Structure formats: C-alpha cells, structure tokens
C-alpha cells in the first residue's frame, strides 16, 4: 500500500490561514489502511482544526467527506456540485489523490494534509516499512525475493557495500542491510550462483528517471 504520515498541525493551520470554509477530504483506499487519511482521521483532524481556530477567535466551517478513492475519476465527480461552494479542499489522501483532485477541480486550491510516504507493508500495528520503489523492472527472482533497489540504501546491484556491519546498514543501526538479507535468503534457497554473476547496469529509464510514467493497456481500452 501507499503509506503516509500526518503533517504537523501547525503546518496545516498555516496553510488554512486564508480560508474560513473548506472541504476536508479523506480516502477509503491505502490511507485508510495505514490510518492516516480515512473517515476517522477526517473527523479527528476536522475537530482539531475547529478547536484551534476557535481558540484564535477565527472560526472555520469544515465539510467532512471521505471518498471511495481519490485516484479514480468516478469517485471524484460526486464532489463537483458543491466543491466551488468552498474556498479550498484539504485532502488527506496520498499525493496522487490530492493531485487528481487538483486536476479535476481547477478553480479550487488543493492543500495536502499528509506527507505521502512509500510503497510498503504493515510490520505490526503502527509500524510500516518500505518494500518497493516502483522502478518498473523487477528482479526479485534473482535476489531471493528481496529488492536491492529499495532495501539497500545505495540501491546497488552487487552488495553489500563496506558499510554493512553485523547485518545492519551504515545509515542506521535499526535498518537491516538489504544485501545481508539477500545473501541469507540466497544461501537458504541454494541460489548463491545468482550472487556471483555480474549484473548489467540497471536501466533507470523505466523508473522515475524516465520522466512521469504511464501504463497503457490496449486490451482494456
């Protein structure tokens, strides 16, 4: 899923300073699962903002909504009839959802209420970790199911670097060395022959480096 973290309330209040009526829009997709942008978070954030603004003697009217998904056009349309009745939309969906709202409702300012994180998994309640950078050219079959692009701080294809110490990464003793994980897994799978092969230079053109990406499935159009 796409993960995220709430923006500090002071930053949100600063963004909202010019406005006295807004829509606060959540999303029932990934951000609900990682508990940063669902209907519950919409309610809590709306109350927090109202209280803060009341305390400053500058009341704000907030319409609370939670869309099925902010990244699909059909779920945005229901907002169209009333969106321009408000001065701005504060969205707590991921960056994709917020941008899609901005594209569809061009006359209304869109404000981000969360910082979008990464493609990750739930380790346990309250802890998420990154697994995929969406580089567009998966090699997990060669690396024991562990991604060198994401799990190695240097995204190198022949690791580990000299900074791997007792299975931990040089950037943070709490972070496991991705290449140690890969090697452990290759050893367990008896696939170390994959390790000693020289890998070709990675083509980053299928990643973000090739510019904003598009997937076009002719079979579905």
């Amino acid at each position, binding site marked *: 899923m796409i993960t995220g973290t709430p923006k500090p309330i002071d930053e949100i209040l600063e963004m909202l300073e010019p406005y006295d009526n807004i829509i606060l829009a959540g999303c029932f997709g990934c951000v609900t699962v990682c508990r940063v942008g669902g209907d519950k978070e919409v309610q809590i954030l709306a109350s927090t903002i109202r209280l803060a603004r009341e305390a400053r003697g500058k009341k704000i009217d907030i319409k609370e909504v939670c869309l099925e998904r902010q990244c699909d056009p059909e779920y945005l349309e229901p907002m169209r009839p009333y969106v321009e009745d408000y001065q701005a939309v504060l969205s707590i969906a991921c960056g994709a959802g917020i941008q899609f709202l901005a594209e569809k409702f061009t006359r209304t300012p869109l404000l981000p209420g969360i910082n979008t994180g990464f493609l990750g998994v739930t380790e346990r309640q309250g802890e998420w970790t990154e697994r995929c950078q969406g580089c567009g050219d998966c090699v997990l079959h060669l690396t024991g199911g562990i991604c060198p692009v994401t799990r190695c701080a240097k995204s190198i294809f022949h690791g580990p670097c000299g900074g791997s110490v*007792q299975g931990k990464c040089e950037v943070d003793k709490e972070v496991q060395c991705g290449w140690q994980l890969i090697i452990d897994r290759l050893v367990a799978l008896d696939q170390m022959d994959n390790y*000693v092969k020289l890998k070709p230079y990675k083509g980053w053109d299928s990643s973000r480096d090739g510019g904003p990406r598009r997937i076009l499935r002719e079979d579905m159009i």
Partner: protein
Amino acid sequence: MKSGSNLERVLEAGHFAVTAECGPPRGADPDKVLQKAQFVKGNVDACNVTDNQTSVVRMSSLAGCMLVQQSGTEPLLQMVVRDRNRIALQSDLLGASALGVRNLLCLSGDHQKFGDDPQAKNVFDIDSIQLIHLTKTMRDEGIFPSGDKLEGAPKFYIGCAVNPFADPFEIRVPRLKLKVDAGADFVQTQCIYNMDKFKRYMEETKRQGLHEKVKILAGVTPLKSAGMAKFMNRMVAGIEIPEDIIKRIADEPKEKQAAKGIEICIEQIQEVKEMEGIAGVHVMAIEWEEKLNEIIGGAGLLPRPVVEH
C-alpha cells in the same frame, strides 16, 4: 601494459609495490595538497587522492591528482559512484586520462548521511563493480558502454577496494572474484590489524587462484595512540583491531604511543610482505603523511624501484 602507469610497471616487474594516500583539503588552497605531496614524494609508486571521503566536501579528487602529479608523484584517482551518474563518470574518466592520470580506484562512496550534506540526493546509477566494468570496456574495447566508438580510449590501471573483515565474512572472497571478473587489475584492502583473519581470507583467495589474476596491496594504517585504536574499533565499519595491539600501545606512556604505533605498522608491513599473494602495501597514514618516510623506510622498502617504460 594496460595503462603504462608507474604502479603497473612496478607490480608487473615483480617488485613489492607501495602506495599511500592524500586527502584533499576542505578548501581551495592548493598548498595543502602540495605540502602532503612532499611527504609522499619518493616514498611511493603512486598516491591515492580520495574522493570526498565520508561524504565530507573537499577539493575534487581529480584536481588533487593534478597537484600530486605536478609535485612529482604519480596520482591514483579515487572515484565514487555516490555523486556521479554514468554520464559524469564516463566524462570524468576521459578527462582524467587526458590529463595523464593512469591509475583509478573504483568505490561506492560512504552514504551522504555521514557528511556535510545529509539531505543531498545520492546517485548510485551504477555500482562500484559496474564502474570497474565500464572503465575496462572503455579502455580495452575503445567504446562507450553505449557501443559508440571513442576518440581515444582512456588508459587506466583499474583498482578496487576490498574489506576482508566486513560482514558477512563468507562472501568476502566471492565478492573479490566479482571485482576480478568485472576487470580489476589491482586491489587495495581496508586496514589490516587482525592478521589471523586476513590470513584466512588470503588462503581462500589463493585457493580460487585470485591472487594470480589481481595484484593485492594490503592496507595498513599506523595508530597514533591507544585512543585512536579504540575509536576506530568502535566507529569504523569493518575495522577490527585486536586487543593485544591496543594493549601494546596503551602500555606506553602517552608521548611514546605514536612511536609504538609506527613500530607496529612496520611489523605489519613486514608480515604482509612475507605472505604469498600479497603484491604490495597501501599505507594510509591518515593526516600523518609526514611519517610515511619513516614507516616505509623502516620496513626496508626504500628507495622505490625505477622501472622504465
């Protein structure tokens, strides 16, 4: 000859090679490099110039190489893949070769987190092993990795670093083999203090015949004090200084600890010199270049041989 560098000639002639290193300054003052280069001159076959080590911004390695070369010592260009994509790497290789640099050390580079600018974007477009391969392709095939023909191939004696003590130990030698397969001509090791572990590493290296395919220069670093030894043990990844070495230094009074450190370093050089498969020594006298003559001379490695083209 692959590059015709002095280091390559010395090693190919069968001499025990000596290299050292100069870290460029945190500023634009060329005299800082020239002063260090004076301590190096005559004591080594080539001198590494580091590339923004520990991600701390310094004068560029190539500029440092030019200053070392001017002062009469053959430079060895360290190049990390942290800060340059493959376009910049190729371009800098061509430029360095055009300016007469003939030795190259291919490195990953410490993560930017450790330096002045932890918020910098890192590159790591290709890794250090792929940089070896890229350089060899340009040198030996006279083409860019893209396949286009070069107007003059760069000439480098291609090196890599290995850390015989890093984790996990069991892939240390397979990793060296990867570097040799990619095209490394020589290796400089991380500083060696744990000789027993290093011998085990060399046994496996020899078993695979790697010492015949690549020239291995054993890394040593003189310890200035027991405090420095303890600090390195604690802070530097993959450094293991055995207790008995620390104790030998700690047993000396403060003012004599540096001399003891040098004495131990000389012993270490003499010990690695006797090991089969070791072709030379890389003396990393960090901010202590003025002691190079004493150390290298003390190990009986002076004067340096002159091997004609």
